C-alpha cells in the first residue's frame, strides 16, 4: 500500500515491488550462502581434525604399538609409552571436579530459584556471570598461590600439587557453566509454572522441588554433560596444579597427569616418535569422548518438547 501510494501508476508500483522482492531474494540467498559456508567450514574442520588424528595415530596400529601405548607405564627413556595412567587421571579428575561442582551448582540454582531470599538472586547470578569471564589460567595461577600451599600445609606428606588441588580448582572453573545452563532452563520453566503452583498453595521450595525439577530435567542433564566435558577437556589447570606425575593415583593427595596435559607436555619437549604417537592416541581418545558427549547432548535436545507440561499461554 505504501508503495502504491508512492508510485504514480500501478505498473511502476509493480516494478518497484518486484525489485523489492528481488532484493529480498538476493539478500536471503546471500545469507543462506553465508550460513552454508559456515556450516561446511565447521563440519570440515572437525572432520579434518579427526582425519589428521587418525592419520597420525595410524602407525600405532600398523606398527603394532597399540599394546605398548595402552599400557600402564610411561617411561619414555626405557621405551615405555603407556598412556593408561593419563586416561585414568583425566577421568578421575573430571569425575571428582564434577562431584564437587554439580551439587554446588544445583544448590546455587536452587538458592536463586526459591530456596533463598529473592534479593540475593541478582548478585549471585552476577557473580557467576563474572566467573565465566575469568580466563582459565587465572584460576590455575590463583590456585598455585593459595590452594597449593594450603593443601601442602594441611597434608605435609603431599607437595600440594595434587589430584585434590586440581579437582577443587577445576570445579570452580566449570561451576558457572553448570549454573548458567541449569538457571536458564529453570527460568524458562519458572515463567510457565510459577503462578499456577503459587495459586495451589505451593511454597517456592515446593514448586522448585516438585514442579520445576521434573520439568527441567533436560537442562539438568545438559549441564551435567557439558560440565563433564569441560572438565575433561581442560588443560591448563591440570597442567599447573595436578603435579603431572604419570601414575595411577592412590589417594586424592597424589599427583596425577591428564591426557590433555600429557599432550601439552610431550609437544613442549623434544620427544621420540613413539612419544608423539602416544599423544595422537591421547588426542583420539579425548576426541572420541567429546563426540560421545555431544551426541548425548543432541539426543537430549531432540527429545520432543517437554510433553508433561500441558498447554500454557
Amino acid at each position, binding site marked *: 500500500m505504501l508503495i502504491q501510494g508512492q508510485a504514480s501508476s500501478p505498473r511502476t508500483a509493480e516494478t518497484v515491488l518486484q525489485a523489492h522482492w528481488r532484493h529480498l531474494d538476493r539478500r536471503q540467498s546471500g545469507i543462506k550462502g553465508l550460513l552454508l559456508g559456515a556450516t561446511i567450514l565447521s563440519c570440515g574442520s572437525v572432520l579434518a581434525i579427526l582425519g589428521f588424528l587418525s592419520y597420525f595415530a595410524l602407525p600405532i596400529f600398523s606398527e603394532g604399538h597399540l599394546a605398548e601405548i595402552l599400557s600402564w607405564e610411561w617411561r619414555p627413556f626405557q621405551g615405555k609409552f603407556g598412556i593408561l595412567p593419563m586416561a585414568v587421571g583425566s577421568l578421575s579428575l573430571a569425575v571428582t571436579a564434577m562431584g564437587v561442582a554439580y551439587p554446588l551448582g544445583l544448590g546455587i540454582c536452587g538458592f536463586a530459584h526459591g530456596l533463598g531470599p529473592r534479593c540475593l538472586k541478582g548478585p549471585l547470578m552476577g557473580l557467576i556471570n563474572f566467573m565465566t569471564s575469568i580466563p582459565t589460567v587465572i584460576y590455575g595461577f590463583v590456585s598455585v598461590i593459595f590452594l597449593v600451599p594450603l593443601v601442602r600445609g594441611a597434608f605435609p606428606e603431599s607437595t600440594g600439587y595434587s589430584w585434590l588441588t586440581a579437582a577443587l580448582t577445576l570445579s570452580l572453573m566449570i561451576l558457572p557453566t553448570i549454573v548458567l545452563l541449569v538457571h536458564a532452563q529453570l527460568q524458562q520453566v519458572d515463567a*510457565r*509454572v*510459577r*503462578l*499456577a*503452583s*503459587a*495459586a*495451589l*498453595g*505451593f*511454597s517456592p521450595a*515446593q514448586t522448585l522441588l*516438585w*514442579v520445576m525439577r*521434573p*520439568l527441567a530435567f533436560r537442562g539438568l542433564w545438559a549441564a551435567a554433560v557439558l560440565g563433564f566435558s569441560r572438565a575433561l577437556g581442560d588443560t591448563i589447570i591440570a597442567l599447573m596444579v595436578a603435579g603431572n606425575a604419570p601414575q595411577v593415583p592412590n589417594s586424592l593427595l597424589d599427583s596425577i597427569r591428564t591426557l590433555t596435559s600429557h599432550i601439552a607436555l610431550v609437544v613442549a619437549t623434544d620427544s621420540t616418535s613413539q612419544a608423539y604417537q602416544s599423544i595422537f592416541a591421547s588426542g583420539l581418545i579425548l576426541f572420541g569422548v567429546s563426540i560421545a558427549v555431544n551426541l548425548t547432548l543432541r539426543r537430549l535436545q531432540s527429545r520432543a518438547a517437554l*510433553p*508433561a*507440561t*500441558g*498447554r*500454557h*499461554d
Partner: protein
Amino acid sequence: MGPKKPVDLEPTVLVKSLHVGFAGREVLHNLNAKFNRGWLAVVLGRSGSGKTTFLRALNRLNECFPRSATRGSLKLKLQGEWRDIYRNAMPLPELRRRVGMVFQTPHLLPGSIADNLALPVKLVLGVPRRNIASRVEWALEEAHLWDEVKDRLNAPAHTLSGGQQQRLCLARLLALEPEILLLDEPTASLDFRAALKVEELLLSLKERYTIIAVSHSLSQARRLADEALIFRDGSVVQRLSREDLQAPDTLQALLEEIF
C-alpha cells in the same frame, strides 16, 4: 436453573476501596464489591479492564509480580471467621488453597492425571499417603471427570483433551477443600461443547462455594450468573441481577459496553 434465589445469602467476600497497581501504575481504582456463598457472580468487561488483577487480589497472587502494590480492605469469611487477608490473617499457602483459582488455559503439573491431584493434596494439605487415592477419586467425581479417566489415572495428564484438562484443574482445586473459587475465563480456550460441560459443573458446585468467574462471553454470563459485575478501567461500573441479564435492552447496552 430458573430464576430462583437462595433463601439466606451468606456474604463471604467484602471488598472495600481496593486499589491495586503495578510499578506505580494503578490498575484497580477504589473497587467495592460483595460476594456470597451459594451464589455465582460473573465478572464482565473489556480486555484490560482489570478482571484478572481483581481475581488475583483475592488470593494475593498479584504479589508474585514485581512491584505490585495493594491498598484497601479485603475481607474473606474463611472457616466461618472474617479475615482481612492483607493484614496477615493466615499464611499465604493456606490462603491460596482456601481461595482456589483456575486460569484461562489449563496449567498441568508434571506427571500423570493422578499425580496432578495427589501432589497438591500431599504437599499442601498433608494428607497421609493411604488416604490420597480416595480423595483423588472424590475430587474427580466432583469435577464430573471420574468416569472419563478412571481407567487411565496413570496416563500423562497432557493426553487429556482441553476441556478435560480444565476440569482436571478444577478437580485439583476441589481436592484442596477450598471455600472460594476464582475462575479466570475458564472456558476461553475450549470449544463450545467442552465449555458447556464446565458450565454445567460450575452450576452443580455453586450451592456449596462462593464462585467468582470472569467470562468472555455474554451468553455464558446469562446462562450462569446470579449476578454480573461490569468492569471498566479498573472499577465496577454496573451490577446486574439475573433478571437484568435476561432483559433484551440491557443486553444491547451491555454489548456496547463490553465489546
